[in-house]
């Protein structure tokens, strides 16, 4: 066996429990399980196992356990097993690795070093069970008069929208589930750069359509079908490089939607070739506004990078109505590993510096600020908003709600849960209504939690938390990071 094929996981099957029903064999989309007739038992090819746990979930007798393969590489805390495996794979193939989901490296999380305030004695908290607490959020230009006849912005019922995931990267079923959930929740989902499937047009009022550098599926009616249009410049998981939908996922239907040959890699170039400057960006913003008769807000999505504040300032001046900033932990269907794991900055810092810069320049009210990239729970939502965001976008969390186990193999197109796949057999595994119900539940639970947080803070609306960094304290953060965040240390 070649050294890079030493399995990472081990499939353990309890012979006393296994009834040889072979469900696991059919469920494993990675081909790691096989029924051996002669031995009358299920045998595994452990090196193909990705620990998606589909077999474990589907085994009627609970006979399967997946464990980490307890190989004992001579311990080395610097040349870790991961480092050694990465080298072996490249040494064998001569190629970079493609990976999925947000970075799995253990970078420090700033969210985990921020704490929220609470009212005690001198300022009364609000009881969310009895008193109304508002989560409605306005995405758009707030600087125009409230009496303006036709405000361009959008009102969403919760400060949480769904991030961009294209038809191609995820299944139509997963997109439908998100669209249904967005409609029920009174919020927005984003179809990413893969066109708008005819089945989704009825959900237009809850959809953001994307114009990215590959311009897949972009036409006049597409722009007009949605509630908002997003120009995608960058993505947190892969700042500075383009999109990549591996050919494995470009089926006949995807090829029709994107108008590219079947089986080709759908590649979006790193830059939009009509945008090399803020002036050019402004040109596309207004081209979209012209094509939609100035009836829809235009957002611009960028990855959080070193000079994000200045870029955001430029975007605010370009005529855009909102800025979406995606932190370095943001997910992806496919990205080169080295890019995902090494480029960009944390979303927490990006929100703070962008909010500061926009306030400093008197631009903050002109644009909505939507933060994404690693929002895991309602605590993260509250902290992101307190740092200065109007709303957050979640994607990975929504997929996890549907049943994704974060096996991080989206790029193979073999998602056993029917989420990140175009294989009709696998797609059929995702029940749209059930997936939508679970996503709705997640956001409802988070909403209740947000209200509880707001009540504890003595705030009657999410609006009162927006950019309210006085409500945050840092723990275990150095002085400079605290200064960047505009947050005091705990105890002060």
């Amino acid at each position: 066996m070649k050294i890079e094929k030493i399995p990472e996981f081990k499939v353990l099957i309890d012979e006393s429990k296994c009834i040889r029903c072979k469900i696991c064999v059919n469920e494993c989309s990675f081909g790691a399980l096989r029924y051996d007739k002669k031995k009358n038992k299920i045998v595994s090819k452990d090196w193909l196992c990705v620990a998606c746990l589909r077999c474990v979930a589907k085994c009627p007798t609970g006979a399967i356990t997946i464990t980490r393969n307890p190989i004992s590489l001579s311990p080395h805390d610097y040349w870790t097993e991961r480092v050694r495996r990465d080298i072996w794979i490249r040494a064998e193939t001569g190629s970079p690795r493609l990976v999925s989901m947000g970075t799995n490296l253990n970078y420090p999380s700033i969210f985990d070093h921020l704490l929220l305030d609470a009212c005690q004695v001198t300022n009364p908290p609000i009881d969310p069970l009895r008193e109304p607490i508002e989560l409605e959020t306005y995405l758009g230009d707030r600087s125009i008069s409230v009496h303006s006849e036709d405000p361009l912005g959008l009102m969403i019922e919760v400060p949480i929208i769904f991030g961009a995931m294209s038809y191609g990267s995820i299944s139509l079923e997963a997109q439908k589930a998100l669209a249904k959930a967005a409609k029920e929740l009174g919020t927005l989902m984003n179809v990413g750069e893969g066109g708008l499937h005819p089945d989704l047009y009825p959900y237009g009022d809850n959809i953001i359509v994307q114009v990215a550098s590959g311009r897949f599926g972009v036409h006049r009616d597409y722009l007009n079908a949605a509630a908002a249009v997003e120009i995608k410049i960058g993505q947190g998981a892969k700042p500075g490089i383009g999109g990549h939908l591996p050919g494995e996922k470009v089926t006949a239907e995807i090829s029709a939607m994107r108008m590219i040959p079947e089986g080709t890699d759908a590649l979006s170039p790193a830059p939009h070739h009509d945008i090399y400057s803020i002036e050019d960006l402004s040109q596309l913003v207004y081209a979209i506004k012209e094509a939609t008769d100035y009836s829809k807000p235009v957002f611009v999505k960028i990855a959080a990078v070193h000079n994000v504040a200045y870029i955001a300032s430029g975007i605010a001046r370009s005529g855009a109505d909102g800025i979406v900033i995606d932190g370095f932990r943001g997910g992806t269907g496919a990205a080169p590993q080295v890019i995902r794991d090494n480029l960009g900055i944390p979303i927490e810092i990006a929100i703070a510096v962008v909010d500061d810069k926009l306030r400093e320049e008197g631009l903050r009210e002109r644009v909505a600020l939507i933060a994404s990239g690693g929002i895991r729970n309602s605590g993260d939502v509250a902290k992101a908003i307190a740092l200065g965001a109007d709303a957050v976008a979640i994607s990975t969390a929504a997929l996890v709600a549907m049943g994704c186990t974060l096996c991080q193999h989206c790029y193979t197109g073999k998602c056993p849960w029917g989420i990140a796949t175009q294989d009709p057999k696998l797609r059929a595994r995702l029940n749209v209504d059930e997936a939508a119900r679970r996503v709705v539940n997640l956001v409802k639970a988070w909403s209740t939690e947000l209200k509880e947080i707001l009540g504890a803070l003595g705030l009657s609306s999410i609006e009162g938390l927006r950019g309210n960094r006085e409500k945050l304290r840092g723990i275990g953060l150095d002085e400079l990071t605290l200064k960047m965040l505009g947050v005091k240390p705990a105890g002060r």
Partner: protein
Amino acid sequence: MTVFEIDCRGLNFKAVNREIKKAAERGEKHLRLLNVNGQRYICGGLKGEVKVEIHGFPGNDLGIFMDGPMVEVYGNAGDGVGNTMNSGHIIVHGDVGDVVGYSMRGGRIYVRGNAGYRLGIHLKEYGEKKPIIVVGGEVGDFLGEYMAGGVVVVLRLESDGAIESRFIAAGIHGGRIFVRGRIDENRLGFGAAVSDLSEEDYGLLEELVRDFCRVMKCSSRGVSSEEFVKIIPVSKRPFEKLYHQTSIKVP
């Protein structure tokens, strides 16, 4: 048929487009824009069967997201002509700037003069929808970069010898490019190759050259289908080997 005239002198792009849309909605079938001077997005997102004459110099993104109209420019045009256009026809009797026909999904663009960098990049194609671009003069570098479908023809009516453009059709994975004259292999980008023309190619070229010369009122004499070089994708998946795709997971 009556021609509805719009004097664009002193109007900004918003006003020009508003006038065009109003006229089109009213059912005008033939518009004439006079004194056009750099207004952007002319006919942007315009839908329907209307003919628009442009006298002067339209600004960038002429016909962006356009869906159906027939636009004829009696002058030069800027960058982004026919950007992400869905259907229709744009005819430019002069030169055009960069990124002409970016991600075009259908329809035709004819340019009498020269074109800048990145002509016909990301051209799409599916079923009946096949975008076509014909340029009478020379083109800049990165012609047909990442092309996924459609047809680009570079006639080079005033030129002899080899084409000077570099990185031609880099990353091409669908569609065809025809260049009149010689092409040195080192001018081709990654994933592009020169190929022989088929009977169908000759037929298409003859039709396009005839139509182009009719529209541009120029002579097709001296242009022979035999002089064209055809550029095609080496494979429909040129970057297949770029990344190592493995199910071996790393902790």
